[in-house]
């Protein structure tokens, strides 16, 4: 048994009377290097520990939960957190649906989500990667005027969740990233572009991939115009699609649904999207960087079909939102670190790939606009009403080919319409860090506001 699980279970021994305790402990190490002008700008090495404790008391009229956390695993910090969590219980409103997860018999997938290289590759080699990335971007194109930041980062995290209701789960994960932001100039204006490559360890990342992305994105945006206002087909690239999918994923959370905060509420079994559109949440797929054997309550994760050929199949639930909806948890509790309490959410979305390459999608649609980045997403999308109005940069598509770069535009529609208006899905699925994988996605009926 892992050391962290033992520690969590030891805290459970402090249970008093009929209360229930749930403990989440985590331990992580990280390295971050930023290179600038051939040298290290900063280098961070650190380790962090944390514990989150929830206490539940039950009575005839319902259960109550209180919680507390500490950024340390020392005994004093743990006792203080347990004391605070117990005190906080008293103030919660009794709720018949509140409960801790109980083992549900689903076996967790066997996933190897760690790379030994995070540990074995020396800090010097990691530093060298960041410096090499900076140099490579700078040397790529004479129009690159500056490399704002080129960094290597990695982390290794291990955690355990245990409860007096029988939960005992552990997980471990490593990640490594190379990312770079470059600025290109044509003498009159500057444009920036960002590139990334991610993997489980430093040997799984592709430096040239990050370089190419950053260089292409900033150089081809030079000379961007503000086009006239129009309506048409927007083609989202893999990164922009991933952003879009995570927004849609938010409205597929059972939590949002039971609280009446999703435009999908009450529409199970209806056609909510184009028949080409199949979206699943599958944390058991190890190719997805967000894969995980267990959810935030320590239940096994599973593959959940959300939208199949346009038909709304289901939502994702944690224990409490599931009880409110009268269904079982789908193993989809999310937890925002030690200070966060579980709540239902999608974790590892993927859109079923289509058959066309990006170039074929351009050819098929003829005219439209290619969207490379979305900005202002957190302010411009309302997951309750579905209103969608987001800033974008990209390029016009004319006669099936990329044409002038465009900036200072917004793309607007509603999420409901956009799902139904999907006209093509690319075959170019890309595994990205974050909630969703992405690929080329073409959507009709988009208003592009320019001048």
């Amino acid at each position, binding site marked *: 048994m892992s050391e962290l699980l033992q520690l969590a279970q030891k805290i459970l021994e402090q249970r008093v009377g009929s209360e229930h305790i749930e403990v989440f402990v985590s331990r992580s190490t990280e390295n971050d290097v930023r290179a*600038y002008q051939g*040298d*290290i*700008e*900063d*280098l*961070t*090495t*650190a380790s*962090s520990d944390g514990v989150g404790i929830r206490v539940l008391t039950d009575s005839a009229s319902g259960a109550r*939960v*209180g*919680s*507390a*956390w*500490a*950024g*340390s695993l020392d005994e004093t*910090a743990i006792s*203080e*957190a347990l004391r605070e*969590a117990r*005190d*906080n219980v008293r*103030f*919660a*409103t009794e709720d018949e649906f509140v409960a801790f997860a109980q083992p549900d018999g689903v076996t967790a997938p066997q996933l190897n989500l760690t790379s030994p290289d995070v540990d074995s590759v020396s*800090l010097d080699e990691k530093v060298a990667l960041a410096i090499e990335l900076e140099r490579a971007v700078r040397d790529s194109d004479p129009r690159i005027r*500056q490399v*704002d930041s080129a960094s290597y980062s990695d982390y290794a995290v291990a955690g355990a969740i245990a409860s007096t209701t029988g939960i005992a789960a552990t997980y471990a994960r490593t990640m490594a990233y190379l990312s770079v932001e470059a*600025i290109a100039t044509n003498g009159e*204006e500057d*444009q*920036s572009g960002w590139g990334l490559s991610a993997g489980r360890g430093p040997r799984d990342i592709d430096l040239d991939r990050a370089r190419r992305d950053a260089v292409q994105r900033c150089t081809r945006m030079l000379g961007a115009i503000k086009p006239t206002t129009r309506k048409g087909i927007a083609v989202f690239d893999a990164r922009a699609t991933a952003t879009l999918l995570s927004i849609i994923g938010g409205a597929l959370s059972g939590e949002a649904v039971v*609280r*009446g*905060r999703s435009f999908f509420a009450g529409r199970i079994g209806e056609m909510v999207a184009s028949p080409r559109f199949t979206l699943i949440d599958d944390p058991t797929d190890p190719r997805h960087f967000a894969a995980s054997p267990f959810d935030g309550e320590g239940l096994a994760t599973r593959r959940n079909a959300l939208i199949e050929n346009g038909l709304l199949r289901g939502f994702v639930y944690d224990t409490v939102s599931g009880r409110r909806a009268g269904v079982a948890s789908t193993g989809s509790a999310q937890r925002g670190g030690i*200070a966060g*309490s579980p709540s239902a959410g999608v974790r590892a979305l993927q859109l079923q790939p289509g058959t066309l390459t990006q170039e074929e999608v351009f050819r098929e649609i003829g005219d439209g606009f290619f969207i490379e980045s979305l*900005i*202002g*997403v*957190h*302010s*411009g999308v309302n997951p309750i*009403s579905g*209103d969608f*109005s987001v*800033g974008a*940069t990209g390029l016009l598509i004319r006669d099936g080919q990329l044409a002038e770069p465009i*900036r*200072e*535009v*917004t*793309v*607007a529609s509603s999420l409901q319409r956009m799902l139904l208006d999907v006209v093509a899905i690319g075959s170019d699925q890309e595994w990205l860090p974050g909630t969703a994988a992405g690929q080329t996605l073409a959507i009709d009926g988009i*208003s592009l*506001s*320019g*001048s």
Partner: protein
Amino acid sequence: MTTATLIDQNLVEKVLTAATARGGDFAEIFVEDRQANSATLDQRRIEELTSGRERGAGIRVVIGETTGFAHTADLSERGLLKAAEAAAAVARSGGGGTKTVALESYRDNTTRATELPHDVDKARKVELMLLADDVARSQGSAISQVQVGLGDTSRRFLVANTDGVFAGDHQVRTRFNVQTVAVGDTGMQTGYRPVAATRGFEWMTPERISEAASKAAQQALTKLASRPAPSGDLPVVLAGGSGGILFHEACGHGLESDAILKQASVYAGMVGEKVASDLVTLIDDGTMVDEWGYLAIDDEGRPSARNVLIENGVLTDYMWDYMRARKEGRVSSGNGRRQTYAHLPMVRMTNTYLMAGTQTPEEIIASTSYGVYVAQLGGGQVNPTTGDFVFGMTEAYLIENGEITTPLRECNLIGNGPAVLKRVDAVANDFSTAPGTCGKDGQQVPVGTGQATMRLTGVTIGGTAA
């Protein structure tokens, strides 16, 4: 309680000496003890109270232009020396000789707080949340949901460095948010209002909470009658206090010296030049007591200050932290901030605002024949290289023939910061501020923004109406 007790002075000196033993030019230790409480009310239920505590130290070592950084939750001598050694690993040359550390006499600071949030009876916090729920629901039967969030933090820190800085601050912040949903024939609309101050819990009076709750409810109710916003280039009138975040994002970030020194800002090399309309005077001021971005000292121990960035349209200066100021041979402007001990400090804003003008808000609206009136801007984002920005309008109306008319559905505003600054053509006398959270390189810090009612041109409304 004084922040001086966070760590023993002898240990501070020992750690700084160890951190520079391999030849660092500069070393700093930042020790923090942070307590946070939060609670949410949803559908009349108090869902969960959460309390947290985090203690630790961040140590940085600077050699040339390279920074080494390590942090630890282990505040024992062994833990701190280990972190000092890790931070010093960037000093590869080794053996630069021992630095003598002569610390100044300790400067302690504290936020005005008669009631520390952690000591406030939790039952009283719960009562205030229920009050907000009652007030919001009493505004109209169409209010179907009310969510209330309460969060407070008490952050005690001590910072010391090899230049002799030795100071601490106890920062207390209290915040209430009310979110509402109204349902009508046209679907669901939302409302939002925060109450936030760098103050003790005494700020959270029933009057302030009730006002926020009723405004959040009114906003959702009003929006039920909203129509799709127009799209295209239109004059925009920002209500006082509603849109300071636009200048924070679209101009403030470009005036941070890290972006300037990397030539990554449109404002690099522009000091003394006319960058805005004569009506624009932009200030960053950490000394505004009670405001959400108030600080006695920044996270590098430097006293906060009132820094004029743009005066009557002319760029006067940038904002500076220790590292950037050092490179330019000047002093920091008190803008070195960090989210927690586990983060490196960088140049950040405090309270950033545009100074008020002389017109009345009514005059500005009356002189706008067709445009958009923004009563509340939501979050936004800016591309620092181009200055292009995007902001959500969470409450907006059409202006027709000099009068505020129909409410508009939510949509984005986009524009270019430097261009918009030049096209501010009216500023009123009704200055007010708003709290916000600023994210940069993954670090979140509380900031204040402010402005009086004003009119901008050259902004695109990203609506869906034809």
